[in-house]
Structures are given as structure tokens and as C-alpha cells.
């Protein structure tokens, strides 16, 4: 299964990057959001670390929707989803492959958002870098687990952008809240409490929705009632 997942991820990355849609759109929208929020900063004032964390994760969440819309649209062009379903490849290979591709694209867009957050929102990383990295990867896994599951749900729907946004954002609240708080700890020069419980929340979220995805994805992707 891993070989098929890797082939799926490699194909998606190649098409998404060469197509210049999902990733480019996600980066541009995220940068625009960060820049627009930077305009709310009063002259000579500062944006709090909590607000900066919220803006970063808001940009990431919007990017997630664009990335997964694009990844699942790849199979819609010539009915390739039926080809995959009729092949002996396990459907979970699609979920893992799309998730891996989505994780790579989300991380690439965040590599742009992070310096933009520092530049436009006047933030520095005071906290430990390991915490920043652990938060980024842990929360991103939660985001892509949900994105890969619900991206499949919205495929073929005319209103997929709105459908995906409406369903995804409420589900993402716990992991976004943890990401925002942990990023605030990293951006703040003052100690803001212990990160353990928030990291635990991210781990629990990842585990819960990975389990749900494993169970639900075959039904969602095949469209079978």
C-alpha cells in the first residue's frame, strides 16, 4: 500500500505544482490575509502574539481548503476516480497519498507564511524552536487528516469550495485553538504557561480523526451510500 500511496502523492505533487493552482492560490491568499491584518496594527503599536498566531493559522486553514480542493479535482478531469476505484489499489492508499501531498504543500505554504508573520506582524520567535516545529507538524497532521477526508466528500460538488469550508472550519477549531496558543507561547517574550496540555490536545485530535478517516474514507471516496 505504501508504494501506491507514494505514487499517488508524487503524482499529486507533480500535477499540483506544475498546474500552479492549489499551492499558488494558497500562498497568495495566505499572504494577502497576513498583509491585510497587518494594516489593523495601530501606528507604533504591536500585534499581540496570540493575534499573530491566530492570523497565521487562519491563513493556513484557508490554504488547506484550496490545497485539498485542487488535489481532489485532479481525479475529476477524466473520471480517474473510477479508474482508481476499479483498480486493486486499496482506497486507503488514496487517503494516505492525498494526505502526504497535502502535508507537503501546506508546509511549503507555511514556510512562506512564517517569515511573512515575522515581517508584517512584527513577531519574533522567543520560545523554543522545537515547540514551534512540533506544533507546526502536529497541527498540520490534524489539518490534512480532516482535509483529505472532507476533500473527498466535496469532490464533484458544484459548491465544493463553500461545502468544504462550512464543514472543515468547525471541525478544525480544537487543533486551531491549540496551534494559536502554542504559537503565542513561541512568539511571546514572556512565559505563557506550559505547552504540555495543548500538545496533548493536538495528539488526541490527530489520533481521533486519523481513526475516523481510516474508517470513513472508503465510503466517502467511493460515494457509496
Amino acid at each position, binding site marked *: 500500500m505504501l508504494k501506491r500511496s507514494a505514487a499517488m502523492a508524487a*503524482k499529486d505533487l507533480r*500535477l499540483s505544482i506544475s498546474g500552479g493552482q492549489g499551492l499558488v492560490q494558497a500562498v497568495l491568499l495566505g499572504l494577502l490575509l497576513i498583509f491585510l491584518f497587518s494594516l489593523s496594527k495601530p501606528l507604533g503599536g504591536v500585534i499581540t502574539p496570540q493575534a499573530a498566531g491566530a492570523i497565521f493559522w487562519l491563513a493556513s486553514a484557508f490554504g488547506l481548503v484550496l490545497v485539498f480542493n485542487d488535489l481532489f479535482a485532479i481525479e475529476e478531469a*477524466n473520471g480517474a476516480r473510477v*479508474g482508481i476505484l476499479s483498480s*486493486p489499489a486499496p482506497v486507503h492508499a488514496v487517503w494516505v497519498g492525498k494526505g502526504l501531498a497535502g502535508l507537503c504543500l501546506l508546509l511549503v505554504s507555511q514556510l512562506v507564511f512564517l517569515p511573512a508573520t515575522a515581517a508584517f506582524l512584527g513577531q519574533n520567535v522567543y520560545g523554543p524552536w522545537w515547540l514551534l516545529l512540533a506544533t507546526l507538524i502536529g497541527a498540520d497532521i490534524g489539518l490534512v487528516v480532516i482535509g483529505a477526508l472532507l476533500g473527498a466528500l466535496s469532490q464533484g460538488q458544484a459548491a465544493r469550495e463553500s461545502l468544504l469550508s462550512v464543514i472543515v472550519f468547525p471541525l478544525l477549531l480544537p487543533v486551531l485553538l491549540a496551534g494559536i496558543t502554542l504559537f503565542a507561547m513561541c512568539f511571546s517574550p514572556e512565559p505563557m504557561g506550559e505547552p504540555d496540555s495543548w500538545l496533548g490536545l493536538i495528539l488526541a485530535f490527530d489520533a481521533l480523526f486519523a481513526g475516523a478517516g481510516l474508517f470513513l474514507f472508503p465510503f466517502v471516496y467511493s460515494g457509496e451510500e
Partner: protein
Amino acid sequence: MVPSGGEALLSVRRAAKFYGGKLVFKDVSCEVRPGEILLVAGPNGAGKSTLMRMMAGLSRPSAGEVILRAEPERTAYLGHATFIYPGMTALANLGFWGTMYGLSPSRDELVTLLTRVGLERAAEEKAGSFSRGMAQRLNLARVYMVRPTLLFLDEPGTGLDPRSLALLRREITGFRDHGTGVVWISHHVDKDTALADTVLALGGRRVEYFGPAREYAPEAEAC
């Protein structure tokens, strides 16, 4: 030529399909044996594609059962959708589908397959630039790669010019002659009945005819 016969590759027993509360068809029973072409006929909306999706394991029957005895690795589906990724080359497309079928074809093997369908010169071209006929030939190369024992054809001739259509018919009978069981939904029932061994005609939410192709007299219907 491999004679038809042997254990059925596919058995459908009293299958029914509902969408919500709406009946699509009921009491459908048939079998497909190696080296046999089953032509599925019927007017638009009779449930031909729904039945094929059920036979191919893409959808569950609401009642009855579908028994697939062919190995999943040797079962192929060729529809009017070409399954190609326009942003990838013909070689990359074929390589990807090879991996999905658990195969690891070398570049030379892929080129040989493309040569067989007359696409060797377009091997490195992006499939998005292909005509409908070329795209369907690339799709056919995918089927050759699988060397299917059971082949599902869902109106694969849609949009093809007469020359490509003739080539496709020749390939379909070629598969049958090599022992592949074929389930075929065709737009051209009048012509294609002559190539089939058995016909299953759907209409009025039930089976109107199931029997030898030579005894089937299609009504004037738009399939």
C-alpha cells in the same frame, strides 16, 4: 483462440438496485465466462451503467448478490472517461496506473505498450494535448498492461471516429479470443450484437432479454 467456457468469472444473482426509494432495476441474473462477450443493452436510463458499476464492485447491490471470481489485479475497466491525467506524459500516466495495479513495468515495457496502440511517438508528450482517439488508445494501453481476465467496457467508443471505432471493435474481439470475459455496454447495439455471445437487455426496470446474441432482436431504441 481460447474457447469460451469454464467457471464463470462473474455471476449476478437476482440483483436489484435502489437509489433512495427509487428502483433502478430488479431480478437481474447473468454470468460471464472466460472468452465470452456479454453485451448489455437497453434505452437511456435503464440502469446499464449502474449494473456495470455493480458488476465491477464499484457499487453494492441493494438486493441479491454479485460474485466476482476474477482476480482484482486482472480486472480492468474501460469507459468513455479516459482516466488520463492531462498534466502528465503518456509514459508517466501508464507508469502511474501500473503502480496502482501492483505492477512495476520498466520504461521499455511501457514504450512497447505505447507502440502497440500507436502512441510511441507521443510517449513524452503531455496527455492533455491528445485527441479523444489518442487518449482512448492510451487508456487501451493501460488495459493491455493489466492483461485482464475480466474486462468491463462502458461505452468506450463514445466520441471516437469510425476508424478508431473499428480498431476498438477489433481489440475487443481480440481480448475475447485470448480468453478474456467481456462485459460491454455499447452505443451501437445493432452492430455490436454480432460480436457478442450473449445479450442482457434492460428495460422497464427489469431484464427484457437474456440469452444468445444471435437470437436477440433489438427494438428501435436509443442506447
